[in-house]
């Protein structure tokens, strides 16, 4: 009898494959130990569901196609409370529908992963074209004060790797974690190398150890409560209402609300060292920097080399974690450079927190592009050249 990890290998197939970004997200989820997926078909994210529906039953897991995205996120949150690792995948319109239950996932501290393969909006927009128009919705789409974790890979390989990271963060901080790609990356095929188990670190949510004195939402130093799955005899009550440490509704106490909501924020904000991921190129020898993320950052990597060949001291800060926003990191770059270029596949979203972090230390220029096409190297080079003439 083979082990579960061996069966995962068998289900995923060859170690080196030529697959789409959507496939890679599914593979990452399976490698992370996801056994439950609920979703609803939507371009350009459907292939994530297709892969999960194919693989999960082979591993004894559960795939369920729900009636809409509201139900999809509801189902994964419910499933997560039985103690399993869960995921759903969608695109902009579906992500809009998920907003209310996303907030429910946050306040109930439910580990879950949501993949958003972004397309152009508003509304139905351009279903088959890539975009990064949901970056701010990720941050503030659900109502009320909250923090969120959002990761943005730049390649098919990284989509798989970061999906595993997303699961780990969801488990560790007991919160929904978002992983955003776009239609371009989701449907692009490239070489994917499936890592060996020795190369994968997995984190499982901390379980309650004793019923004695256990309170489902009481925390220690980590600010993350210990988890007791449904059916384990702990008789946990979970509610989206403001609740006390016992989990019972306390909706009229300003102090209890204040304590709960600030803790939910602090459990993420106190761990930015662990959560914030990024990549730097020429950080110490840079005059004009690009701050980019997602598929755009990929073009920027080559453009920086090209610009340096033309005598422009260009550098690149590739943001991998978008939320919580790496303010201190961007501020450090702003200290050193003449100007920052922010190319985005939207009309300017992450541009705003960047300007906030820069606080006037250098010029910040937005290079917005919408309509579904990627930034061309020429567009980026021209903008860099113009910025390099900017007075310091």
């Amino acid at each position: 009898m083979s082990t579960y990890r061996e069966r995962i290998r068998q289900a995923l197939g060859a170690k080196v494959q030529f697959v789409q970004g959507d496939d890679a997200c599914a593979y990452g989820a399976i490698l992370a130990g996801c056994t439950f997926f609920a979703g609803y078909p939507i371009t350009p994210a459907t292939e994530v569901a297709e892969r999960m529906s194919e693989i999960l039953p082979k591993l004894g897991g559960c795939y369920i196609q729900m009636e809409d995205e509201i139900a999809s996120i509801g189902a994964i949150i419910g499933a997560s409370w039985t103690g399993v690792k869960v995921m759903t995948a969608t695109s902009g319109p579906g992500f809009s529908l998920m907003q209310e239950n996303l907030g429910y996932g946050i306040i109930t501290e439910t580990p879950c992963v949501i993949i958003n393969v972004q397309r152009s909006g508003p509304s139905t927009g351009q279903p088959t074209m890539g975009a990064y128009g949901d970056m701010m919705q990720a941050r503030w789409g659900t109502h009320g004060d909250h923090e969120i974790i959002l990761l943005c890979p730049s390649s098919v390989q990284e989509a798989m790797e970061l999906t595993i990271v997303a699961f780990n963060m969801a488990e560790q901080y007991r919160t929904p974690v978002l992983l955003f790609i776009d239609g371009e990356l989701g449907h692009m095929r490239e070489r994917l190398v499936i890592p060996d188990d020795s190369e994968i670190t997995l984190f499982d949510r901390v379980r309650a150890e004793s019923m004695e004195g256990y309170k489902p939402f009481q925390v220690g130093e980590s600010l993350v409560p210990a988890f007791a799955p449904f059916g384990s005899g702990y008789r946990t009550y979970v509610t989206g209402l403001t609740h006390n440490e016992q989990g019972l509704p306390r909706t009229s106490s300003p102090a209890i609300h204040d304590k709960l909501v600030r803790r939910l924020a602090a459990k993420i904000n106190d761990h930015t060292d662990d959560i914030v991921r990024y990549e730097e190129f020429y950080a110490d020898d840079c005059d004009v920097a690009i701050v980019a993320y997602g598929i755009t950052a990929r073009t920027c990597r080559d453009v920086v080399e090209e610009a340096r060949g033309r005598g422009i001291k260009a550098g690149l800060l590739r943001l991998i974690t978008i939320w919580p926003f790496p303010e201190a990191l961007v501020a450090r770059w702003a200290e050193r450079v003449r100007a920052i270029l922010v190319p985005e596949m939207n009309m300017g979203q992450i541009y705003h927190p960047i300007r906030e972090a820069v606080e006037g230390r250098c010029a910040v220029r937005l290079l917005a592009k919408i309509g579904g096409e990627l930034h061309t190297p020429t567009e980026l080079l021209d903008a860099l050249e113009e910025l390099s003439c900017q007075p310091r």
Partner: protein
Amino acid sequence: MSTTLTLKTAAELRTTHLRQEMFPTIFCDGCGLGNVLNYTLWAVEQVGLDLDRTVFVSGIGCSSRLTGYVNADGMHTTHGRALSFATGIKAANPDLNVIVFTGDGDGSGIGGNHLLHTIRRNMDLTVILVNNFTYGMTGGQSAPTSPTGSFSPTTPYGNVEHPLDICELAQALGAPYVARWPVSVPSQPIKSIAQGISKRGFSLIEMMAPCPTAYGRRNGLRGIEPNWQWYRDHTVLVDEYERVEQFGSPEERAALRDKMKIGVFQDIERESFGDRWAALVDRVKL
């Protein structure tokens, strides 16, 4: 034939099945939700459900607060979405018993689409849908079940819409077990909830429960007694309904028009999602 049941006393049931720290309840005088909770717990006891292995799930509204009073795992979710969460719980761990409390607004208004598809999928859930004809928690606005002509803060000149018969819908969708009872009769709902819990697949027990505070006072049903009398006057057992429809005089048939059928409408067998999924996994599992 006689069956001997060793049941707990009411006092014992209170101690073992209720979450003491949640009392007193938020419910108003004359509200039927206490009866629904009472009947549910008696049914749970009759079936012999292990509360450690039972999850109570609810949405938003007065009836959805019931989960909090049960001493078991409970999930009080978002408005209308209880069935999605319950589906996830049951699909991920089919060994758990999942009981859903919802209301007419929660379950058939904002959550109507989930109701439709959860029945179609035949999830093995027991849904206790409390119908009080109104959105009680927000102050008694008109609901999908509010009778035509009824008054509410959002239908101050009378409701012009047609009410939804949730049981007819569930029956048409093929729910294995469908029943409706007013809270004014205790033993039938207990039996139906117990049958629903035992049924493999989706079961719906609609409980007609009064809301004297928000609905009643605008519709001549203030207090408990007029509400319970209304149930006596406006409900008819399904067998009698069908008899009159077929063989009744024109006057008898006309009298049916403002009556709601009560009783067990459907009790059939149908493979559940869980059974089919388990068979599929057996077929393709590595």
